[in-house]
């Protein structure tokens, strides 16, 4: 069964501001008549945010959506959420739907966090009675217990974003539309949201996930829809679609001179496919395999320009969601055949606490000059148990302890 089904959906917006909207104010059937009689006048100054979009999403599947700014992603979500009606075409949504269009979710600044929870729930059509028993859970999830009775206008952006997500978790949606909400909030909360979304997916929820963070899209989904100028450009398996999308973004950078290079850089950085280095050697291919026991095996092939010149050292490091460098492992000086080589790195187990980590593969000369450093567009997810040390940073230090052991009953965590 399909949760979402769109047939030829077009959404037309009118440009320009300031004047009274005579065309829009015409009720049916006057609008149809005017449209037919004066088509040029009626369609003047319009553009299509969505053009003939047809797609269906089976229930229980997770689908990603990518596209540059203005591609129509948010408009599509708004149509599905019932916020705005399509200009033409039909769509059907089967099941309870909830949408996080953006981090601001429609809170009222003068109401307290707690009052906003009730208000927001009722805007989703969930009654006071049904949400009341869950309010504490929501505040707990959003980590704003102490601020619950403070007006939302005094909240930080991160706090309202957390509260917005918290309310969604309590609505028990069957279809969830998420638009770039994980961009706000700190790394710890993002991790919490991601693991909630993981649980949501595995319990059979349908997810449509919009993000510029391609690593996250890859983690969340098996299928990706690529929108461009309101049209579906590609719709297929996550890996191939994202690869195609990333290539197109690079092409855009080299051809589109009207756009500032910094903007494009930013987008590329957000796609986490950063790469830099002094040159002379190059990482050609990286294959990452996650093993069930929390370990990873990374296979790297690389090339060098001048085989006889110097030894190279291969390096595998990790950064977290916020781009902070966490740690790295370096290979011994490597032997290579003509023009390149192949090396396999096994880290088992990964010495990290629960979270998402992005591997970096680098080729360096033995004196430490970075020849090529590549932030691989692929996330490694560690799902360890929560420990009492979760506030102590991402590295899980394995230590041997000696001393008198506490009695069984007092033995709390036992970790370490």
């Amino acid at each position: 069964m399909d949760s979402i089904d769109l047939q030829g959906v077009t959404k037309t917006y009118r440009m320009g501001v300031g004047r009274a909207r005579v065309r829009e104010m015409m009720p049916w059937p006057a609008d149809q008549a005017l449209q037919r009689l004066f088509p040029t006048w009626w369609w003047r100054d319009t553009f299509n945010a969505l053009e003939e979009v047809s797609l269906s999403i089976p229930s229980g599947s997770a689908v990603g959506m990518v596209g540059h700014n203005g591609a129509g992603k948010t408009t599509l979500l708004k149509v599905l959420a019932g916020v705005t009606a399509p200009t033409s075409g039909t769509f059907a949504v089967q099941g309870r739907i909830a949408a996080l269009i953006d981090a601001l979710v429609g809170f009222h600044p003068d109401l307290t966090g707690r009052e906003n929870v009730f208000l927001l729930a009722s805007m989703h059509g969930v009654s006071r009675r049904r949400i009341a028993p869950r309010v504490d859970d929501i505040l707990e999830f959003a980590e704003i217990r102490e601020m619950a009775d403070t007006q939302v206008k005094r909240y930080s952006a991160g706090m309202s974003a957390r509260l917005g997500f918290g309310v969604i978790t309590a609505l028990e949606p069957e279809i969830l539309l998420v638009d770039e909400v994980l961009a706000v909030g700190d790394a710890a909360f993002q991790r919490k949201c991601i693991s909630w979304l993981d649980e949501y997916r595995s319990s059979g929820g349908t997810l449509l996930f919009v993000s510029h963070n391609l690593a996250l899209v890859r983690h969340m989904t098996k299928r990706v829809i690529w929108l461009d100028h309101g049209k579906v450009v590609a719709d297929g398996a996550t890996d191939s679609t994202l690869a195609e999308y990333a290539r197109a973004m690079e092409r855009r950078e080299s051809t589109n001179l009207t756009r500032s290079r910094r903007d494009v850089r930013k987008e590329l950085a957000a796609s986490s496919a950063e790469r830099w280095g002094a040159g002379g050697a190059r990482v050609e291919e990286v294959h990452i395999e996650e093993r069930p026991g929390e370990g990873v095996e990374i296979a790297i092939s690389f090339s060098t320009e001048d085989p006889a010149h110097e030894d190279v050292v291969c390096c595998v490091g990790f950064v977290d969601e916020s781009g902070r460098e966490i740690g790295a492992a370096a290979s011994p000086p490597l032997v290579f055949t003509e023009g390149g080589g192949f090396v396999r790195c096994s880290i088992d187990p990964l010495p990290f606490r629960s979270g998402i980590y992005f591997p970096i593969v680098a080729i360096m000369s033995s004196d430490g000059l970075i020849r090529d450093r590549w932030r691989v567009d692929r996330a490694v997810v560690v799902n360890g148990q929560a420990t009492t040390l979760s506030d102590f940073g991402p590295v899980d230090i394995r230590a041997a302890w000696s001393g008198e052991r506490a009695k069984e009953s007092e033995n709390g965590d036992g970790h370490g």
Partner: protein
Amino acid sequence: MIRRVWGYRDLLVSLARRNYQLRYRQSFAGFFWAILPPVASVAVATFVFDKVAKIDTGPVPYPLFAFAALAPWTFFTNSLTQATGTVVTAQSTMSRLAFPRAVLPLAMCATVLTDLAIACATFAAYAYLSGAGLPLTALLFPVLLLVEVVLTVGLVLLVSALNVFVRDVRLAVPFGVQALLFVTPVMYPLSSVPESLVPWVRVNPMTGLVESFRLVLIEGRVPNLQLLAPALIGAAAAIVIGSWYFSATEQRFVDVV
């Protein structure tokens, strides 16, 4: 439309409650502001029309005379002036959530209705304290109020929807209701209107309502159908046209505001 709004009745209550909470939040006198405006306007009206202009209201004390009409009248005008802009103001909420838009102006009407309840309690207290008491016909008050609410809600739906497309509405409404106050027998009795103008004054649906409120609350008489006919017809027309236009255009609100 009624069924959709009914499904979101919790939201309606939440919004009405929010309006109330917000009105008195961070204010000093707080809830006192709910009682002050009707009392103050009656006091001012008494000064102007009773003491200065010396309008003849028969045996009825002027404050009671004014209060009985001014309270329902205030519901009518405040609903219109305060609810007209609610759809436009809720732009950011509308662009993210898909609730029935009619909840927005209706919640404001509900808030204003609560004000009326407080004013009525004040009126009842005053009537008993002044020794006049309330006649048995006061039991008809809810029926008259229902007619007034239907009329008001119909107009509010129409006006708040039109305001989304043509913002002149928001500017014209306060002016309109103010003008209407002077041609409706709120501060003066219908009997003091010159004979030749009475038919014109009577066409106004609010005339029949205001006069009827006074009949049932003070004089203990049941209003006849002839007096109320314009109000009944007006209410029916307003609710049909208002809800039709609102539901015909509400899907476009978010794209236009």
